[in-house]
């Protein structure tokens, strides 16, 4: 699907988004979003929403949050010019280095922000879900930092392919709960975390890791992650002497992408989100939700999802656990519907090639998730020579070594494009 709206309506919605009026009072981004949760959780969501309103933009909360971002997370992360990659692609490539943030990915921005919020809301215990394990690590670290106990739900399939992160989560003092139900990946982990939350809506804070789910999560996560785009924008002006022509970010649930894109919406910058193309175009062979999905309700939000004609949510396929998700944040659904952001996909093998190229040219081992953004950017550069390209390098690839180790190491022999 491309644009859902007539041009004037699309412009009205984009202007509203730029003015900060999305989501609206009911948690809607145009037609998308909302709050589809069990009745038991309605009071908990009401309290969370009130807590977000009270604290998120209060000066004392912001002072504490910004201090933690600076002194504990290590922000601002660098903006790195990529000379070899630029040469190979015939472009000017800049990399926003979220891999340099504490715990190795952008996830920590959201985790520490929500952990600080949870502390203020006076909860006893934090639960979180994780796909690639990066959010699990970030949540565990953030909870240790602010002094809250933490349990992380993780699909059994993901525990196997992201084993190093399972161990990291445990060493950071959190409990890892294996999820054997459903598809045993991120979606099942979210379902299971919701089930746990329902048992103690007053005592538990659910630290959701992506810009998905019921209102106010897509808003809350975007606000906490927008630091990525604000920093990148200023750094481009300072270091590159101007804004990029185009910006790329990988999209699973879409937290790093919305964090990068949201502060750039008003600029004349082409924005491209890259989903997991998996092993093919068929239903169940990829996680290209926006490219191939249809509107529906999944895990609390009306958004674009991968489903069959009966409304059953379909399993996904991707080499990257962090993109392996059947839904996507509702704000991305809107940005696609109004034509502001283009969403495309890159396949497993293309992502792997891009990962190896980046290793060889710039000495950066990026996450498999992030590698999808590079694959798409490389293809774009071929079609559009001489562009200034910004890539959101959402995380580092150390966690992917179990997957990468099973593949032949081609990096040393890499000869350039």
């Amino acid at each position, binding site marked *: 699907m491309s644009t859902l709206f007539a041009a004037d309506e699309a412009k009205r919605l984009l202007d509203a988004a730029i003015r900060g009026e999305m989501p609206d009072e009911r948690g809607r981004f145009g037609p998308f979003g909302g709050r589809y949760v069990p*009745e038991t959780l*309605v009071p908990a969501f009401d309290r969370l929403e009130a807590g977000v309103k009270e604290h998120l933009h209060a000066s004392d909360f912001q002072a504490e949050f910004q201090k933690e971002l600076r002194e504990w997370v290590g922000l601002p992360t660098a903006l790195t010019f990529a000379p070899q990659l630029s040469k190979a692609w015939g472009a000017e490539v800049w990399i926003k280095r979220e891999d340099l943030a504490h715990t190795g990915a952008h996830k920590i921005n959201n985790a520490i922000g929500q952990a600080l919020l949870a502390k203020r809301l006076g909860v006893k215990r934090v639960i979180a879900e994780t796909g690639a394990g990066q959010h699990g690590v970030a949540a565990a670290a953030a909870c240790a930092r602010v002094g809250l106990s933490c349990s992380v739900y993780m699909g059994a399939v993901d525990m196997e392919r992201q084993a190093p992160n399972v161990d990291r989560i445990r060493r950071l003092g959190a409990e890892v709960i294996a999820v054997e139900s459903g598809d045993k990946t991120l979606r099942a982990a979210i379902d299971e975390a919701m089930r746990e939350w329902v048992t103690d809506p007053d005592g538990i804070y659910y630290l959701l890791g992506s810009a998905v789910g019921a209102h106010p999560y897509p808003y809350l996560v975007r606000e906490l992650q927008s630091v990525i785009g604000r920093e990148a924008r200023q750094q481009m002006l300072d270091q590159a002497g101007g804004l990029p022509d185009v910006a790329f970010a990988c999209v699973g649930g879409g937290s790093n992408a919305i964090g990068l894109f949201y502060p750039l919406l008003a600029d004349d910058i082409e924005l491209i989100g890259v989903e997991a193309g998996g092993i093919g175009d068929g239903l169940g062979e990829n996680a290209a939700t926006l490219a191939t999905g249809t509107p*529906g309700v999944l895990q609390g939000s009306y958004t674009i999802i991968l*489903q069959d004609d009966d409304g*059953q949510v379909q399993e996904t396929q991707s080499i990257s656990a962090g993109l392996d998700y059947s839904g996507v944040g509702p704000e991305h659904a809107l940005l696609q519907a109004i034509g502001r952001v283009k969403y495309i996909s890159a396949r497993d093998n293309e992502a792997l090639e891009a990962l190896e190229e980046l290793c060889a040219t710039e000495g950066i081992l990026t996450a498999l998730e992030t590698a999808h953004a590079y694959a798409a950017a490389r293809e774009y550069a071929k079609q559009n020579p001489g562009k200034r390209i910004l890539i959101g390098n959402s995380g580092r690839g150390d966690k992917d070594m179990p997957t990468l180790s099973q593949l032949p190491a081609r990096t040393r022999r890499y000869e350039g494009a």
Partner: protein
Amino acid sequence: MKAHERLSAAITAATDLGRTALVPFITAGYPEPKDFIATLQDVASVGDVVEIGIPFSDPMADGMTIQRSSFIALQKGVSLKWIFDQLDSASGEIDAPLVIMSYLNPLLAFGFDALAERSLAAGVCGFIVPDLPFEESDDLRAALEARGLGLIQLVTPATPDARLKKLCDASRGFVYAVTITGITGGGAGLPTDLADYLAKVVSFSTIPVCAGFGIRAAEDIAAVGLYVSGAIVGSALVEVLERGEDPKPFLKSLIR
């Protein structure tokens, strides 16, 4: 009589006889799709209202039993269309008014108007949608009410009074009082402080109230029956069916 009034009437008919109405829940097509109608007829021969669960890929409000039954039914090809076709074929041969319990997405995919139309023809009188809070329910409610079908609201021990009043007023057929703070199929037993909560729900409602979640045996029904008109039995019945046993003796054992 509107379809949702048939639900209220069936429950009231039981209480008029001095007993608590029994509302059994089955997952459609579980354990075997070919036995769906026969199972439904058996269950409806004892139950006063029967709740039919539509299998869904992401049953986030359900415990292991319903998750498992839902997953297997889906694997065996059960869909809402198939369920309506089956119900149509058995029209007039089911002894209780029916309620569909479904997560929202399969209903969205079916289309609300088509859903209401086929429901009315198939003897379905109301809907329970566990992931559709009141605030998001205008469209479905309008489509159902246009044909006299009821959207049954769930209320929980966590529901504040003002909201409880609003939900009781909006509910049609009966009010579904969730007994526990948790998911379906809880094995921990009913909470001991149910009395005040259930009595409050009853005092707020002008239609019958049925209690559900964690109700597994006759003593549970006796406990909630002190306050409410009906009891919903889900996971415990699905477990009986899972073991391949006849549901009738189990259901009869629940009625005292």
